[in-house]
């Protein structure tokens, strides 16, 4: 059953559950952070509207910097701003940040522990029709391997707003990942959010889904449906991929004895890989991975793509059954 401490949206499984894109949470989170701290600055690389940094621009035009289509310079300028005491948030698509300015992120920001907040919007298959070039499916892998960097993939609009706000308060480099499409707001204002603290969304004992991002809603639906088949699935929101909440991950694996990871990202190097790194050393249990299987995406609606690439509700259910069968085979 749903964990009451997660204080999820009571309308979670109703058809009229409110939907908003996670990127909206970034826009609103930046405005909130900007109201509280005059040092918050927004940087934009010609994508003010679609990344929602334009919402910050409207409120704080003097603290908004249009960089033009120049992501490498944007990262460097953000580093300089941070060195002078600003809290710069840079915004573009995940395929460009970290895709195009990884060196600047690694050396200028992370090596120097500069207080820069980097965001990758339109991550995962959710970009849909734009096709394979624009579907950022590698960003978690290439950010989580950089020392000193916090990596967060929030699950819905509200969590993204909280994560953005928390990133402003945190001192040090942070990478945040958002999606483009509207997805269900299944958390509530009261749902706790703390960087590095995983949240148990649903209690269960047969297997645990450890996920991040909007696909967690599909995971919750899958878990709910499996109860009818007598399968009791735990669901953990592992929003902070780094530093990961290892203790919670290990405890969940111990309790359930089988793990399925779920993410809209390449399986290779992603959040699931991070979970496997921890569990293989501390609590090896059978694991299945839901995510992109070493392929590029293609054009289509997000729903079509999620189904076609095996990340939908039914794929998650199959993975659960498979991992449980592996658990019982001795």
């Amino acid at each position, binding site marked *: 059953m749903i964990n009451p401490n997660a204080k999820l949206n009571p309308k979670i499984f109703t058809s009229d559950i409110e939907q908003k894109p996670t990127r909206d949470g970034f826009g609103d989170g930046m405005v909130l952070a900007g109201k509280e701290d005059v040092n918050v600055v927004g940087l934009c690389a010609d994508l003010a509207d679609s990344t929602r940094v334009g919402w910050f621009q409207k409120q704080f035009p003097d603290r908004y910097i249009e960089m*033009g289509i120049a992501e*490498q*310079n944007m990262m460097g*300028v953000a580093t300089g701003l941070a060195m002078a005491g*600003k809290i710069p948030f840079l915004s573009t698509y995940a395929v460009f940040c970290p895709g195009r300015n990884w060196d*600047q992120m690694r050396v200028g920001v992370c090596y120097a*522990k500069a207080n820069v907040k980097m965001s990758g919007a339109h991550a995962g298959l959710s970009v849909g029709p734009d096709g394979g070039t624009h579907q950022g499916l590698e960003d978690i892998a290439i950010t989580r391997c950089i020392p000193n960097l916090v990596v967060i993939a929030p699950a819905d609009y509200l969590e993204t707003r909280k994560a953005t706000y928390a990133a402003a308060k945190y001192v040090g480099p942070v990478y945040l990942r958002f999606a483009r499409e509207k997805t269900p707001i299944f958390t509530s204002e009261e749902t706790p959010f703390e960087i590095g603290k995983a949240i148990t969304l649903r209690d269960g004992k047969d297997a645990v889904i450890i996920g991040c991002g909007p696909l967690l809603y599909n995971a919750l639906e899958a878990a709910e449906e499996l109860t009818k088949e007598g399968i009791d699935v735990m669901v953990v929101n592992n929003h902070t991929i780094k530093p990961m909440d290892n203790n919670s991950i290990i405890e969940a694996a111990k309790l359930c004895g089988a793990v399925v990871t779920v993410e809209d990202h390449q399986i290779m190097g992603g959040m699931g890989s991070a979970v496997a790194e921890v569990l293989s050393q501390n609590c090896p249990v059978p694991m299945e991975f839901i995510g992109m299987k070493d392929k590029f995406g293609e054009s289509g609606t997000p729903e079509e793509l999620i189904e076609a690439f095996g990340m939908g509700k039914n794929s998650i259910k199959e993975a659960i059954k498979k991992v449980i069968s592996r658990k019982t085979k001795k």
Partner: protein
Amino acid sequence: MVCDADLKKLEETACQIRQDIIEMLLEAKSGHSAGPLGMADVFTALYFGGILNVDPKNPNWPDRDRLILSNGHIGPVHYAALARRGFFPVEELKTLRKFGSRLQGHPHAGVLPGIDNSSGPLSQGSSIAVGLAYAAKMDKKKWQVYCVVGDGEQQEGQTWEAAMFAGKHKLDNLTLLMDRNNIQIDGFTENVMPLEPLKAKYESFGWHVLEIDGHNICEIIDACKHAQSIYEEPVMIICHTIPGKGVDFMEWKPEWHGKAPNQEEATKALQELRTLKGRITSEAD
């Protein structure tokens, strides 16, 4: 203008920094020789010629002038200048590139007093300097931003992204000093990938450009002061330098870009530099 007696002192300091560089590289057994030697006069002018408003006792003073080094491989000249200016003990120079040292092979921000940015991968410094200059303008601060860049790194696209931004925002609190020594690892810049006309390129991006002899300390100081008087334009000072300057057998040799001297070469280099130091005179002598 710098008075004659002061100039003699500055020339001696530059020569001392060159000796420090040779001694550091010999001890480290690896590193870059030509670039650091070639920029000893520029760093002397910046740290000892009254240009940089910094305080060795309070290296993180918020209102200090900033010096961003973009081509981190010439770090030894920055380290030597900082040590001689009193930011950390001169003896520590010998730890360059060694395990546990604050003097990393390429500079690491936050561990060594006086070093503000991590650098090595090229072309990042100018963007960082631009960000600092922009922040100073936002807060109406008077401090100046200086940035030392290499000529080879002008081949990186990011350099021109930063140049475009600085021109757009008329960052007149920003001064770049380019080490125009004409060499890079694979040979002479104009053979590897031609850079000229650099002056016209920067001017077309909205910069005020000065070209000077990068070994004439008076000229470097004058150019930096001139830069401060320029209104509504960022300034690029192209410093024409000789790679390996001061050590005869290293001058103008691309092969000395990324190489450290062995004992014999170091002895010879130090002998040359000491003789040079003995020859520095002022008209007052």
